[in-house]
């Protein structure tokens, strides 16, 4: 047995499935089943499944941002979380510095650790600076400051003298980039004091840049807001906060000039303007990179290049192939996202994006190019593969063992990541060693002991029937007709959903998932977590608001941005 999926968390938005044991003893003695220690991970902000009823206009275009009685949004995630700070991720920090200095060669530093939560590295609660963190930030700040003064002085200092006017100009201009909003006079005075205490201009600049990098206004995104309307406990995010929120969530980097100008004009509180910016940012290179990061995390495939596989003669599963597999998945996901596609399209795409090495690996297509190109996927004959994301080598090879496929790993992946179903870890005191494969036995026969062992049967009745449908694909994601000299049996069922569906093979699973509303909801749920950094948003209400069955990936993201959660806060506990 091999549970490749992440430790399961009973977080809001996950579906509890019946028939599986209820987690008794499955997470130590954790009565809440919070297996990864996320004490607040199930909605500490008062968010919860089932909230977000439409209590205002259904027409997003009718919102008046100046009307405090208008709840805004379109019925999803309109519960308002606590005022909070979100520490930049390590990638966001680097991207911000690259933007400030307009140079990708900013010194590298492993300064911030990004906790992995729900498979993503964006968690707002877990990302903190503690213990040795301040020291690491200080050291890095000094390195960046020395580099900046040595390499970028002319660029960051429009004047170069120790007089107060020059210092103030530098502090205000450079500070606005680090803080991502204009500095208050108090702040300017404090920073100027640091510069003034140094003997030379260069030393003053080193001191200033070091302070900027260590500033919490650089290290944290603010979601504080300011009082708005009649309710003194409600805070409307400022335009600059919205600009940062939008930019970091959608592009992984700081707000660009356009966003900052809109913020300065006070335009971002206009929801239509906000959503117009979503389209612009998603289409940018950084926006596309952010989508790639999302799909790698959602499907938990990012570490494919480092997954160990036992070598098999004739199978060239090298670094090029592994990276090509990831690129294939990224490109298909982004293509569907960018062209108004839906989760159904993710499941049923009969084309993909292959380059020479991956085309050869799949035995589909040979061309003398390293660029990935849109290619039809044959449904029969040489190179035939299942459609959509689940037929990608990235998913199949990542969710496998080192020397064989894994119906359990694949079944768990579908249940947890595609359907958002709640599956606990195996109970204590169950011997999870599988019987060694006897000669001539298939992988399926080996795993079928689950269905007979009462300790395992509950959960594996939900996992294995789904996982068995992948059995035509080996540990490299390559098609096989036989295993251990016997014809592959890929029959199974989609279970853990409203109405179970009997299946035979991965094509039939893809078709069943394409029709399953829970896939849309699960995507929406993960996308809302990726955007907000906190979970608790109901996927169902998001999909309803984004167009129901017609909801596209893009309309779902727009709904997430339109939601009140994106722009309002309360003080919180």
């Amino acid at each position: 047995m091999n549970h490749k999926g992440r430790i399961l968390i009973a977080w809001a938005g996950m579906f509890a499935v019946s028939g599986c044991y209820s987690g008794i003893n499955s997470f130590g003695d954790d009565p809440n089943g919070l297996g990864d220690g996320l004490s607040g991970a199930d909605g500490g902000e008062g968010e919860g499944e089932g909230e977000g009823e439409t209590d205002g206009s259904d027409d997003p275009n009718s919102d008046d941002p100046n009307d405090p009685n208008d709840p805004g949004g379109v019925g999803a995630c309109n519960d308002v979380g606590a005022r909070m700070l979100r520490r930049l991720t390590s990638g966001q920090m680097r991207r911000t510095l690259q933007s400030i200095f307009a140079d990708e060669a900013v010194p590298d530093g492993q300064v911030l650790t990004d906790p992995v939560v729900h498979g993503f590295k964006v968690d707002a609660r877990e990302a903190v600076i503690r213990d040795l963190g301040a020291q690491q930030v200080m050291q890095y700040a000094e390195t960046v400051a020395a580099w900046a003064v040595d390499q970028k002085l002319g660029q960051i200092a429009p004047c170069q003298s120790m007089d107060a006017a020059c210092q103030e100009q530098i502090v205000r201009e450079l500070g606005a980039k680090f803080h991502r909003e204009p500095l208050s006079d108090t702040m300017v005075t404090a920073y100027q004091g640091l510069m003034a205490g140094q003997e030379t201009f260069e030393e003053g600049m080193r001191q200033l840049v070091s302070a900027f990098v260590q500033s919490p206004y650089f290290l944290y995104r603010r979601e504080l807001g300011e009082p708005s309307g009649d309710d003194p406990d409600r805070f409307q995010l400022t335009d600059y906060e919205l600009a940062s929120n939008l930019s970091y969530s959608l592009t992984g980097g700081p707000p660009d000039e356009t966003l900052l100008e809109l913020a300065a004009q006070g335009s971002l509180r206009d929801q239509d303007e906000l959503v117009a910016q979503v389209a612009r940012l998603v289409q940018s290179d950084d926006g596309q990179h952010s989508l790639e990061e999302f799909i790698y995390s959602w499907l938990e495939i990012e570490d494919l290049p480092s997954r160990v596989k036992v070598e098999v003669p004739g199978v060239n599963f090298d670094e090029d192939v592994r990276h090509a597999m990831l690129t294939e998945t990224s490109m298909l996901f982004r293509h569907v996202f960018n062209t108004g596609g839906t989760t159904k399209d993710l499941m049923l795409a009969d084309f993909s994006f292959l380059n020479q090495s991956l085309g050869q690996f799949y035995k589909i297509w040979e061309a003398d190019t390293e660029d990935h190109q849109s290619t039809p996927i044959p449904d029969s004959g040489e190179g035939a593969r299942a459609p959509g994301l689940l037929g990608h080598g990235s998913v199949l090879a990542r969710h496998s063992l080192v020397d064989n496929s894994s119906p359990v790993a694949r079944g768990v992946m579908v249940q947890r990541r595609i359907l958002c179903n709640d599956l606990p870890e195996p109970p204590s005191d169950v011997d999870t060693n599988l019987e060694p494969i006897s000669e001539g036995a298939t992988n399926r026969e080996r795993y079928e002991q689950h269905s007979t062992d009462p300790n395992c049967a509950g959960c594996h009745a939900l996992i294995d029937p789904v996982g068995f449908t992948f059995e035509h694909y080996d540990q490299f994601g390559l098609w096989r007709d036989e295993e251990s000299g016997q014809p592959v049996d890929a029959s199974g069922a989609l279970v853990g959903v409203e109405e179970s569906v009997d299946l035979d093979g991965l094509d039939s699973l893809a078709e069943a998932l394409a029709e399953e509303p829970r896939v849309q909801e699960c995507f929406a749920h993960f996308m809302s977590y990726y955007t907000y950094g906190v979970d608790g948003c109901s996927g169902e209400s998001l999909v309803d608001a984004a167009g129901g069955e017609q909801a596209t990936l893009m309309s779902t993201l727009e709904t997430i941005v339109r939601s009140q959660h994106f722009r309002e806060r309360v003080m919180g506990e």
Partner: protein
Amino acid sequence: MRGIGAAGLFSPFVSLLDPRKAQAAVGSAKYLMIFHTTGTDINLWHPAGSTNSQISFSEMLEPLAPLTDSLVIIEGLDSKGTANNHAAPGGLTGVGYSSNERISLEQFVGDGLDAQGVTTPFSSLILGGESSQSQSTFYRDGQALSPLFLPSTAYNTVFGGVTPDPGNGESALDRLARRQSILDVVGDQLGALSSQLGSEERQKLELHTDSIRELEERLVLEADGGGGGGAGCSEVNDPSDSGESLHNCALLADMAATAFGCGLTRVAAIEFGHHQATQIGIPEIGPGDWHNYLHSGLSQNLINVERFVGEQFVATAQKLQSLPSPDGNGSIYDHTLMIWTRGMGDAIGHSGTDMRFVLAGGAGGYLNTTPNGRYLQGGGQAHQRVLFNCCEAMGITDFTGFGSTDANAGAREPLSSIGS
């Protein structure tokens, strides 16, 4: 129930483990070195034929043989439901998820030494692990802590940290003043932000503020000429990061020993691998996934990886043996308690009812050893009692705030048979 656990109930050594009646003897160990891994195959680990005056090493344990005369190994302890599955937090804390006050051994001992007036730049170091996985081994105030994952990061933080030579002729006091002036501004900004938050979010900034305060203490210590360059301070090996996390851990363990020698810390913990996903490309071990070794019947691979950790345990011990104690009294090893702890017991069964430890080191004379090693059967006693032994060895006998206070967790006392 699996074979070994049942045998433990009838072990002749159970009587050795009666709760300590007399006043606990305070140990005089000065250093604590912790190795941490996930659970194992208890049958393969079990040193059959061992007694309380001799260890008969299993193949898995055999690399530990060079330390025999300072070795105590114990199995058959019960985590009392706190370390019985993936991500269960009890291994180093003794408490499960029902408590929000988890603190792991290295943090508690670090605090205890601070309270005793031991001033080192780092009260403890946590190293190793897997950055791509969720963390569930080290804790403070119930929150999981992230180790320094990579050798390069650890090197920069621990050795290059507060004492780099800026090369500009700036005096230590001037540098201190310059850094403190920035930290003052940062502190004011944190205060301003904090006042706008509810209490839950404020805690996040309090951690940041505490981190700055601890940094300032280190800076002051450094400016005063303290906090480094101990009698056994030696060059650190090449801190280049490897793509193999276990190789990184080996380097980190070596670095931790050097940090002891340099007087930078007294407490270090290295987490080898991760309970859920540790990819291993080292030919003599795998290749494979540690987790798969456990659940796919890959016994030889599991033996190999356990032997690898055992070899690093010995290498670290030998490094400590080569470092002179600052007081001129023997080596640092003579004053160190080394311990190999686990986050689970029987990992194949995802069970915490059969926990095991390897203890070694001079430990200031704390460990009750024999020339041929010492093997003990825990008889189902709470595993946290061995964690209390570790505290006691370090001269810490007030266990308030550490481990479980649940009556079902058993006595809140060290095991009597481990200390001499």
